């Protein structure tokens, strides 16, 4: 059984017919945009004439939450038809969220075998991949029709799936995989994204930046530039700390050289050393190389030295050595303790800092 996202908010209107005959040709869709609280936000057609309606679901506070549609469609191939009944869910950027099939109508594979939990897991992974090569294939390309298995089911043809593409389809269910991937990631997905874009405002920007969805995080970061970055600094630092996927590397790019000089920013970011992954910590150290570090920032920095890898420690000591500020006694004690370090380079660095510090006014 697929994952079911329970409706939490106000259901506006559920009236969706998705009816596809030969679905292979997904034509461009005409679109009708809803106004504000309109029930149906996307009306579209597939194959020129088959109506599709997608609704935007909002949460208890009236914020857009996800998009939803119900599909009941026979999908046919060479006279064999398979009635697919399924609920589909997208996030606000048109990315796959989940699907749900009703009791008594499970997704099936070759010869009526119902999907196993593993099959659902794989299907979820495939549908989540917008870049799947399924986008570029016709069904005929996916299977070797010269080796057709006989079956009264559409997915009967999946027995001849070529091995080079097997990893991108659910075994025994090429047809269902193909249909669902194209419904989720085709024109409906584009329309959803465009709809959200048309509604995007500052409130949504803040919700995206503080969400757990890395698509939202990327999307919002893309809208941050030199002019407005100062406005979102707390959120950016939050994404450096907790952003999903590769988001932290994009987030750190949004802190301008001017902001790096701010004591508060330095302190908050240096505080993260020891909690981030290796590459992210290097990104921070690299950005400190030409920045005068404040007294508060330096205090945190020195305290965090113990959390760094050896190569990072060398880099950090170089940064500290190049600073023009005098270290306090606690900091000097920490650095002096590195004179016992097994790496002779670090010993030398530590001694240079301690001696150099004594020469500072």
């Amino acid at each position, binding site marked *: 059984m697929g994952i079911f996202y329970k409706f939490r908010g106000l259901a506006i209107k559920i009236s969706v017919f998705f009816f596809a005959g030969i679905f292979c040709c997904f034509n461009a869709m005409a679109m009708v945009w809803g106004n504000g609280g309109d029930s149906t936000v996307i009306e579209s057609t597939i194959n020129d004439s088959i109506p599709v309606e997608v609704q935007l679901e909002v949460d208890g506070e009236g914020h857009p939450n996800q998009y939803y549609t119900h599909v009941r469609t026979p999908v046919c191939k060479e006279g064999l038809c398979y009635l697919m009944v399924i609920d589909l869910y997208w996030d606000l950027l048109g990315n796959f969220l989940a699907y749900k099939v009703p009791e008594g109508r499970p997704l099936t594979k070759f010869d009526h075998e119902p999907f196993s939990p593993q099959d659902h897991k794989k299907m979820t992974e495939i549908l989540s991949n917008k*870049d799947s*090569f399924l*986008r*570029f*294939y*016709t069904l*005929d*390309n996916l299977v*070797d029709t010269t080796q057709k298995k006989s079956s009264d089911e559409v997915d009967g043809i999946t027995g001849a799936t*070529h091995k*080079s*593409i097997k990893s991108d389809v659910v075994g025994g269910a090429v047809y269902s995989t193909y249909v669902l991937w194209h419904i989720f990631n085709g024109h409906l997905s584009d329309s959803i994204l465009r709809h959200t874009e048309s509604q995007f405002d500052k409130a949504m920007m803040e919700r995206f930046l503080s969400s757990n969805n890395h698509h939202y995080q990327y999307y919002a970061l893309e809208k941050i530039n030199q002019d407005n970055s100062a406005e979102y600094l707390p959120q950016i630092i939050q994404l450096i700390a907790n952003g999903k996927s*590769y988001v932290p*590397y*994009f987030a*750190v*790019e949004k802190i301008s050289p001017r902001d790096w000089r701010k004591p508060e920013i330095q302190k908050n970011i240096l505080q993260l050393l020891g909690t981030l992954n*290796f*590459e*992210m910590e*290097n*990104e921070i*150290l*690299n950005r400190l190389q030409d920045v005068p570090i404040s007294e508060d920032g330096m205090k945190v920095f020195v305290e965090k030295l113990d959390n760094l*890898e*050896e*190569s*990072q420690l060398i*880099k950090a000591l170089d940064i500290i050595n190049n600073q023009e500020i005098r270290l306090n006694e606690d900091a000097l004690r920490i650095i002096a303790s590195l004179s016992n370090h097994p790496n002779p380079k670090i010993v030398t660095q530590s001694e240079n800092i301690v001696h150099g510090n004594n020469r500072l006014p």
Partner: protein
Amino acid sequence: METKRRDFIKCLGMGSGAFFFSASPGFSQIQPEELAEVNKDVFKKVSYETDFLIAGGGMSGVCAAIAAARNGAKVILIQNRSRLGGNASSEIRMHISGASALRQVWRETGILEELVLTEAAENTQRSYEMWDFVLYDKVVSEKNITLLLDTAFIDVQVENGIVKSITAICSPTEEIYEIKAKYFADCTGDATLAAKAGCEFMWGREEKSRWNESLAVDVADNKTMGNSLLFMSQKHEKSMPYTPPKWARKYTTKDFVHRKITQWEYGYWWLELGGMEDTVKEGQQNRHDLLSVLFGVWDYIKNSGNHPESENWALSWVGMIPGKRESRRVVGDYIMKQGDIQSPKMFPDRVAYGGWPLDDHPPGGMNTTGVVPYISIPLKGPYSIPFKSLYAKSMDNLFLAGRNVSVSHVALSSTRVMATCATMGQAIGTAMAYCEKNQLSIRQLANNQQQMKKFQQLLLRQDQSILGVENMDANDLARKASVTASSETADGLARNITDGINRDIGDGKSHQWRAEIKNGEPWISLKWNSPVRMNKVQFIFDTGLHRFLRISPQDTVYFGQERGPQPETVADYTLEAGRNGAYYPLQKMENNFLRLVTHEFEPITTDTIRIKIHKTHGDELARIFEIRCYMD
């Protein structure tokens, strides 16, 4: 002799002294009137006349030249560098990719296979320069080939749709060549010859609707895949710090989200730029931009802190010639499209094959690190390449091979790789000689089914990579012989050697004779009811075509490869002839490592041919795909 010596000095005075010797007292005394006289001798014209002029000494041109020469044509091969191999040479160092990417059984055969088997056997040290000399040796060893290195095509003379001659310049020898030929081949990659001749060509990306290509862009544009510059590095015993030039670009971790750095002994095909501009005309800027990318990426590896294991590594080689993926594509009588790659057809005029994925690269390259550097759509199997895509539509005598053949942008994303280009080269080289021998125009060969079938038989006999063609050669005496062997395995029957199929074609059958070697020296024989006359016997041995086999600067490319001779291959054997049950040795072979081996000898009359296997390169089975016998 004395005169020559004086001329030499005069030439130095004018040609080079102006730049290098002006301060030398010895040359400062040359008189002005002598200089005027010398000037006439600079860039002297040299005329050649030949059967086949090939412009471009990359893998396509090399294979075309060897194929044509071996089929009896006089060939001039011009190459604008001092080394052969183009993108595969030590100057660029891209490994030769092709149908091995399918991970099935489809490594290319023919001349390319001969080249790579030779390299694997003789260059176990993996020296790139020695790979260049494998190509050089094969080319200069063909007496029908005149190789003109450092020679750049600059002009072409055309009359009534027929290319008459080309002009080329060799800067180091100060010669201008006028080369007349009956046939020409544009293997330049950029279609320079064809474009200068006025042939219709394509550039950029065609729109989806043009040829119903799902992988095409929605709206046509002039963008292409970019060029790449490669590097190599070595590990040292001590820390090797690196300071980039000031003009190197700066990269951070976010730039490598889609471009993984897992090793740095060789990198990286994704050091790619130029697709947004003109990959030819903007080449000077493109090279510098690529260098700024390359050194920027090396700076990132060395100094970002993300790769501390690179501490002792330092650059050992940096390419200076960007490897091109795409530029002009000449319009032929047929334009290959996505459908021809993804849903392969058995073109009646098929003469070569490919098997690389539909592997398109977004034009932005390293200017757009936020997007993936490639979109690669795997193929189900190999696809055929039609002859009609391998000559220019608007010229009567201009062949094409390499990335500049008649394909759509989408199709090019697969056909562009060098093993595929090499198979095209062998096809057109053989075709040229076939046309000349049979007094056919190129288009006549393309459109005459009987001639095309005979031509395909010739290609197959010479081990060309070709699909769905079986040995129907009426001149092959082996097809009329009965086959017996000392032993055979259940899946390697003796009769397989004349079943018409000379390789594994993925149909579950071996198509080869197999015999255990541990119990002695197995043999296989061909016997005729009545004596036959012959002067040639050729074998196709097993060289493990299911594996990849290529020189590469990258260690991981060698995983699964067998360097040296391939273990399946028969190494030592004796070819014997027999008459009424008595055998005598015809020829002995030691340490063979090739797939196609031809034995030529004075004509004999015999009723039996026998091959006795003494040794393989490690395999427990003696394996032979095919034996053919001819009286040529």
